[in-house]
């Protein structure tokens, strides 16, 4: 096992990883910027290094700097969390070169799977249904030809896109013509790769993702799914597991299909396969996330398996000590993301508690919310035996959460949880737009 791990991230996920390290007896090394010096992850870590001013480009995204800190502090591995360098194959390669373990997939499979159109080719071969679409399209003529074959409406997506960015909804041929060049430019700027592809637009649909863990010995388990259909502008707000829209037999069928596929493609580490579930009950594969997800806690609360610890164990070469049979999908876990709507200093913080209530955050009383990083303040996750009980618990916990000094979306989240459509589980991706 690694004696020391560097956490190349900030915020609640850095705190989450440090907690796992503390339980496992691993020394944790935090990196932070001047803007984050009063953050909880800095206070909790065993060793801490300031890596610059607030701007993430020169700090949390500075690969050489982070490697230098790891070498200086003699950290054996780097956990990238999510965002920042977590899906950067070059960074994983740089770690490998310096004999530091990157906690995630190896750089080769990262390079291969992060290209969405290539990944789809691979996944199609495993028998999973993939959203009808194209491989990389280079010219507008190619795009028009492909579009008429698939049929409108459709989505124009960037090959290297992610996190809801680089996606355009296209209704007709003239719109495609107008958007194509603009989308190429934008993708080039945002992801340093202007490649685009076309995908059928499926609506109404639900966003369902399956969590997997795979070790080096080709043991693969699927830890069930998460329903992430409550989204605003492609940003997830509420996630739950299991999804109220999937029957038990369908779930088992999908889980079997997915574990088989992951074994075939030889992926190692924690990962998430994202699907759209259409109104006929069919799953269409969209993409795969090669990292820890923000909403991993939902699956942890439901199944009782610690995904972060297993990421670390897998990276150090350990085998999974459980099989698919040990995974019980019983009860219901729901997560509400608490986002900041303004900057400011928290002068009062009350965190909800009680049985099976979890609040993952990095803020403490006196923390100043800055505009430099994303707006996620914390994740409120509850678990109960039934969905109804979970909803009640979530409502009560949301009311108990107090963050004074920073404006939050607590009230809006409560309204969503109180909504009939959400309560009876019959929502889809259009939920937020129809409100």
């Amino acid at each position, binding site marked *: *096992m*690694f*004696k020391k791990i560097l956490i190349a991230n900030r915020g609640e996920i850095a705190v989450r990883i440090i907690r796992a390290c*503390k*339980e*496992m*007896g*691993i020394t944790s090394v935090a990196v932070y910027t001047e803007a984050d010096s*009063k953050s909880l992850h*800095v*206070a*909790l870590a065993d060793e801490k290094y300031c890596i610059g001013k607030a701007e993430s480009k020169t700090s949390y995204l500075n690969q050489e700097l982070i490697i230098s800190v790891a070498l*200086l502090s*003699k950290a*054996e*591995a780097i956990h990238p969390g999510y965002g920042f360098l977590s899906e950067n194959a070059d960074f994983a390669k740089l770690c490998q070169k*310096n*004999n*530091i*373990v990157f906690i995630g997939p190896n750089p080769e499979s990262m390079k291969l799977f992060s290209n969405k159109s290539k990944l789809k080719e691979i996944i199609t071969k495993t028998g999973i249904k993939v959203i009808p679409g194209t491989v990389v399209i280079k010219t507008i003529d190619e795009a028009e030809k492909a579009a008429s074959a698939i049929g409108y409406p459709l989505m124009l997506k960037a090959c290297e896109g992610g996190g809801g960015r680089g996606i355009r909804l296209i209704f007709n041929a003239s719109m495609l013509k107008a958007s194509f060049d603009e989308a190429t430019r934008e993708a080039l700027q945002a992801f340093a790769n202007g490649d685009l592809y076309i995908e059928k637009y499926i609506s109404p649909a639900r966003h369902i993702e399956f969590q997997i863990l795979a070790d080096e010995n080709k043991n693969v388990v699927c830890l069930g799914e998460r329903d992430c259909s409550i989204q605003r502008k492609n940003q997830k707000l509420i996630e739950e597991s299991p999804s109220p829209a999937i029957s038990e037999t369908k779930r088992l069928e999908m889980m079997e299909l997915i574990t088989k596929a992951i074994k075939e493609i030889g992926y190692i580490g924690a990962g998430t396969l994202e699907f759209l579930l259409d109104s006929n009950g069919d799953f269409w594969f969209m993409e795969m996330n090669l990292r820890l997800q923000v909403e991993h806690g939902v699956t942890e609360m439901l199944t009782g398996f610690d995904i972060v610890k297993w990421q670390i*164990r897998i990276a*150090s*070469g*350990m085998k999974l000590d459980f099989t698919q049979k040990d995974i019980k999908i019983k009860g219901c876990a729901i997560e509400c993301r608490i986002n900041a709507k303004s900057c400011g200093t928290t002068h009062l913080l009350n965190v909800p508690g009680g049985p099976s209530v979890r609040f993952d955050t990095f803020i403490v009383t006196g923390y100043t919310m800055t505009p430099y990083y994303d707006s996620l303040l914390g994740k409120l996750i509850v678990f109960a035996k039934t969905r109804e009980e979970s909803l009640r618990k979530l409502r009560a916990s949301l009311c108990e959460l107090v963050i004074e000094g920073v404006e939050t979306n607590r009230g809006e989240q409560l309204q969503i949880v109180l909504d009939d459509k959400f309560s009876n589980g019959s929502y889809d991706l259009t939920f937020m737009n129809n409100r």
Partner: protein
Amino acid sequence: MNLFLYPNNQLEEGGRPSQLLEQQNQIVKTCPNCRREVNKDKGVCFCGYHFRISARERISLICDANSFHELFTGLKSKDPLSFPLYKEKLKSVEQISGEEEGVVCGKAKIGRQNCCIFAMEPNFLMGSMGTIVGEKITLLFEYATKNHLPIIGVTLSGGARMHEGLLSLMQMAKTSMAVKYHSDAGLLYIALLADPTTGGVTASFAMEADIIIAEPGATVGFAGKRVIEQTTRRTLPEKFQKAEFVLEHGFIDLIIERSNLRKVLTSLLRMHRGE
């Protein structure tokens, strides 16, 4: 901001050893004695030269695996005299050595026998004795006296820490008192003098042990050789202040090679228990 306590969880077992650490252990060093290249993790050259090793390496070399439990952590030096650049110096040596202070104390098992152990850290201002080093060693002797435990002390020091002036010198008296109380209780104290053991440390707890062992070739003395030569205007013998020379003149009892150390300490502890 040090609000949190340490959970002291043992490291989980399993997985493969890290390549980074293996690579760092394989760093080759040139032996200053015979000029041959030596693998650093061996710690001893073919010619018998003993490289300096850190306090924790020393502890893991002497004690039974996973038996060391550190005591008196979280004590850090202040800058009572506002000595120029002392604070900065402390910060940088803390990073270099990975230790909070110049000595690591704790209880452990050697050959399955309970004992207390302290080891001084060469990478922390050459193990110099300031107020905290003195305090930690005193605390350890008091702890050992209370719990009827023998003490193994690895001394490695340039002497009293000049940055803390008279306060450092006071540690000589303080630690000596604690050694005396420990001795009066009929308990065993074995000192292992590593290279170098000099100045205020030699003049206090290093030379007060019941059994004084030295590592081969270690420098053991009070004032430095050059200082004595310049003051007395006399040339001193070549091996002056080397462990072998000091043994010949009756100041130490034994010279033990690093590889035999655990065996010798185990039997000494056993003999003292009357087994």
